[in-house]
């Protein structure tokens, strides 16, 4: 069968690509568009390393098909910094040593930003449950949760 021709927006840029029916959005991002910041840890939606925003909603890109994103907007880790300026979450993750190996970091950042777009005053409990779909095996989550709380506090101060 012929491949699907898809037009979509990725990190604000218009893109078009061809994909097989079974190709996931993660396959398309990584293999076709060379956006390898989204990671494949499980391909079953359990680890969150492939988290992206699809029309403003947090999704695991391994659970979305490439041909589902026609006409829609995808935001990945590669679109998080603006020019030379890191997003406050990215900056705080660096300062707070909220990453060790770094493989889960893009997913945590995308998911954390989605949370802070909903609320800038999350409790620790809310942060922990919001991020429960993202696995980290290195940090024990302490410094990740702290970094998200600290960023939220800084954002509240403006």
């Amino acid at each position, binding site marked *: 069968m012929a491949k699907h021709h898809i037009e979509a927006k990725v990190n604000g840029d218009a893109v078009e690509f061809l994909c*097989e029916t*079974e190709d996931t959005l993660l396959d398309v991002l*990584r293999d076709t568009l060379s*956006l*390898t*910041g*989204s*990671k*494949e*840890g*499980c*391909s*079953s939606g*359990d*680890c969150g*390393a492939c988290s992206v925003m699809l029309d403003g909603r947090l999704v695991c890109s391994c659970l979305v098909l490439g041909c589902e994103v026609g006409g829609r907007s995808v935001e*990945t*880790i*590669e679109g*998080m*910094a603006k020019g030379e300026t*890191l997003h406050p979450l*990215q900056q705080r*993750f*660096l*300062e*707070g*040593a909220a*990453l*060790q*190996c*770094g*493989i*889960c*970091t*893009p997913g945590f*950042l995308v998911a954390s930003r989605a949370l802070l777009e909903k609320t800038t005053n999350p409790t*620790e*409990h809310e*942060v*922990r*449950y919001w*991020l*429960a*779909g*993202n*696995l*980290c*095996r*290195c*940090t*024990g*989550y*302490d*410094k*990740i*949760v*702290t970094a998200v709380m600290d960023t939220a506090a800084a954002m509240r101060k403006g």
Partner: protein
Amino acid sequence: MAETNGHPQANGQHYVGTRTIRPDGVDKVTGRARFGADFNLPGQLIGRVLRSPHPHARIVSIDTSKAEALPGVKAVITRDDFADQPSEFIPAGEMMMNYKDVVRNVMAREKALYEGHAVAAVAATSTAIARRALKLIDVKYEVLPHVIDVVEAMRPDAPLLHDDLFTAGVEPKPEKPSNIAKRVEIKQGDVEAGFKKADIIIEREFKTAPVHQGYIEPHAAVATVSEDGSTELWTTTQGHFIVRAHCARLLGLDIGKVRVTATEIGGGFGGKTVVYLEPLALALSRKANRPVKMVMSREEVFKASGPTSGATVRVKLGARKDGKFVAGFAELKYQAGAFQGSPVQPGTMCAYAPYDIEHVHVIGYDVVSNRPKVAAYRAPGAPISEYAVESVVDEIAKKLEIDPIDLRMQNAAREGTKAAYGPKFGPIGLEETLNAIKKTEHWNAPLRKWQGRGVASGFWFNIGGETCASLTVNEDGTVSLMAGTPDIGGLRASLAAVAADELGVPYDKVRPIIGDTGSLGFNFLTGGSRSAFSGSLAIVEAAKQIKADLCARACKLWEARPDQVEFSEGHVRPLGALAEKVKPMSVADFAKVAGKTGGPIGGVGRINAQGAGPSFGTHLVDLEVDPETGRTTILRYTVAQDAGRALHPAYVEGQFQGGAVQGIGWALNEEYIYGEDGKLQNAGFLDYRMPVASDVPMIDAILVEVGNPKHPYGVRGVGETPIVPPLGAIANAMEAATGVRFTELPMSPPKVLKALKDKGLSKA
């Protein structure tokens, strides 16, 4: 000429011991960092592995002709593509391995020995074609009876995995082969005599389940072999020099022709110290004359890469009424998986290491069964045996009505204690960690019904080993740092701080990278909590060479004698009367005139690092058990561990916190679950339940610093010890919360609920 270590910068600033921003950090928060699966080569093929569906089967025949005929398939490999290897044991991380087994583990030969064992591999122009090709490979199996459990595998009538495996370490040599690969033991004093002096003896049997390291990044490799045998490999590994050695051996290549680059690594915890995909990708590439990329699925990671041993452990500990331990015995039976090499040896050595006991006897058995071959996992072997001992220590404290911290303090190993496994300890920090825990507010905080508090200590050796690292002073005075041990958790930040302090240059002027195998001399792998310890020693050595060289250059420039100059605070300084004639020169000043004063400036530390100081820790945990469901919630957690000296305190805390949470998973939920058919039933993150953010609280980390006298900064390894105490601490807290002494891990909700019901404590 004089030189000093770790003196402050010219402005008095130290970087060592501060929370610098990691040099590799920006790439990791922006998605730029390239991990194993992020590498691609022009013209690459995709490689996939055909795996055995049977836990134990003789491979009668493999017919690859249909797969080879499929358009788009460029190479198919089987056992026939690897020469057999003689039996020879070599060090692999903290464990030993045998090439005869390695070649059989990467590709099954006579038999498939576990579900998921590689049987064939293909390289094709697309993943879809590779998958289709796997289905066209016809493997004829003669299915054999299998054995999963370690105790069953030890029975004389158990299905035999290897007919040439005779138990080592027993006299006389057994006449019949068995699944018991070896018996090891350590002995100090006379335990029988010791137990006679005991007022109280507790003996218990414990069982632990195999658990996986659970790194989030699956194994991945890209290989290319040229027609002339020049080979390049990009792989996610804890030791690219070790990968090079294994691959050169398995493929019959010259080591010098194989260049291996360690990509960024997405977690390893010991599990990426061995080879799985690498030799297959190389063999496929050699056959296809094209680059080949291979990536494991999560299911493959669970089924075909190493978990650590499950085990059965019997512990017998005797104490006097006043609490003094007089004798300790233990018998450890560790699963090795399909090939020998469980971490039972370190397990025996660690069991009683935290304590000063006159009479100790520990026996260990290394037992094969139809499971994936175990790989190292953070302090391999230690959490299992120390969990059992720490549980019994807790029971003795309860029976004797002695505070569990005081009891540990009374028996603690300290400087001068002769460990049962051999050496006499130098300065160590176990008592300091016990004191630190006792001083916390946590220790005296109130608890409610169904809540419990537990404490446990832990020990790990730490290692040094072969290490090579370089420093190059560039033309503008910036410094390039190259290390050869993959950076998993902040190594580059730690080494850059050491280099900056040694040379007196700003931290952000040092750019650290991990060099490939063609760029540095041999490096043993990142493991044994060695990379910051050994790497910093090598950097200090490299800096020493640079400082000596700059002093010599200054002598020439200033027409001075060696005793008229010294290196301090980033400058070669003239001494005495000379100071009135010439001005000090900084490293950057020398960089500008390098060409005129002797050429490029640099140093290479090539060392076999000795003197790794052992690390002790004590953990404190509060938890609550839900009598309705058997679910356990960790309420509060504090880690105190001796770091010697924390080069980068934030990343040392990170090791403590991460290790504690891995231990929480091991204690409460994680396990390999097999069906009667010998197949793994939970090969995915949904059913293999690792802790998520909502499962755990903040992990308070207390850095205890008892300097290691064998290191110029006092550094000890820190990475592994944190996973040792959690199992015991949590089991002890469970007992405090419920009155039930759990002797089987994981203490998962169904098991806890059943235990509570059996005791009439739950109506659910």
